[in-house]
């Protein structure tokens, strides 16, 4: 496997979305390739960072009330 092949699927690999066979190949490459290992870690850290900083925003209570009301009117 070449580094380019690895780079192309690294996100999907991190998502656990590649086949078992593919995952083994990727893991093997990663073990032997310092650059691709580093890249994988960078992707993961950045994604965790984004997820942490973009904390979910809950719907405001008045919206929930409004929704239930409008659904009951729609009935």
């Amino acid at each position, binding site marked *: 496997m070449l580094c380019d*092949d690895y780079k*192309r*699927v690294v*996100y*999907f690999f991190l*998502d656990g*979305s*590649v*086949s078992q*066979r*593919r995952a083994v190949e990727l893991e093997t490459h990663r073990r032997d390739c310092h*650059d691709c290992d*580093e*890249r994988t*870690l*960078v*992707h993961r*850290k*950045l*994604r*965790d*960072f*984004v*997820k*942490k*900083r*973009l904390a*979910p*925003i*809950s*719907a*405001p209570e008045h*919206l*929930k009330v*409004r*929704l*239930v009301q*409008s*659904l*009951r009117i*729609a*009935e």
Partner: protein
Amino acid sequence: MKTAEAYEHEQGWDFEKAAMPYVDSLYNTAYRMTRNSEDAEDLVQETYLKAYKYYDKFEEGTNFKAWLFKIMKNTFINNYRKKKLTPHKIDFSEIEESYERVIQKNAPDLIRDPESEIFQDMMDADVKRALDSLPHDYKMVVLLADIEGFSYKEIAEILDCPVGTVMSRLYRGRKMLERTLLDYARKYGYIRGEAEPAKMRSRKDEVKGRKKKDEKGEETDVQEPEESEEEVLFAEAEDEEFEFEVEEQEEERFEVE
């Protein structure tokens, strides 16, 4: 179909019970997409009313959350078209190149501890700004995957597109987002060099014939089907190997979910 009053009432109750648990998720995505609470509230309300109206079209046993998101996405797209926001055309190879330059120089520092050292002082507002800098198709996919945790298959369902397109947008969306964050990190002096801002040319610059129409704000221009815009974008840059990769995964995996 709704006939007896009693049945109707029961259906309404069922819907409320089924749909209300997703209000926070829907609102969160609506807020990220519209970028303000008023529009987000309107979008969610419109979504719920439409979903209620078409509740009898929902197939029992399929993914209800994904169905609600799909309605919301369609509603968003309609409103988006009305507002005449201009889609961007992206030179993705340029983004890749500058990403590579930054990664090569900074990967070891980034790995060491991006959160507490390099990104410590980065504001939530910067992360928000980086997300907002993504064209909305990419932003939507990134939100659905990385914030809402939908599978590729569910996202494909929500967006009405092939799984391969989801993966392609996810790949690019994430990379653009990371690249923008790295660019901020560079501007703040946390990492070293060479992440010039990506050139994001608008469609207006590309197609001169449309420019005048845009300025007048004529309705015709807004009708441009968004999907085909997307197809053009990917036809240009998607290489054969990538498509092969996607196909291979589609066959082998999507039963797993």
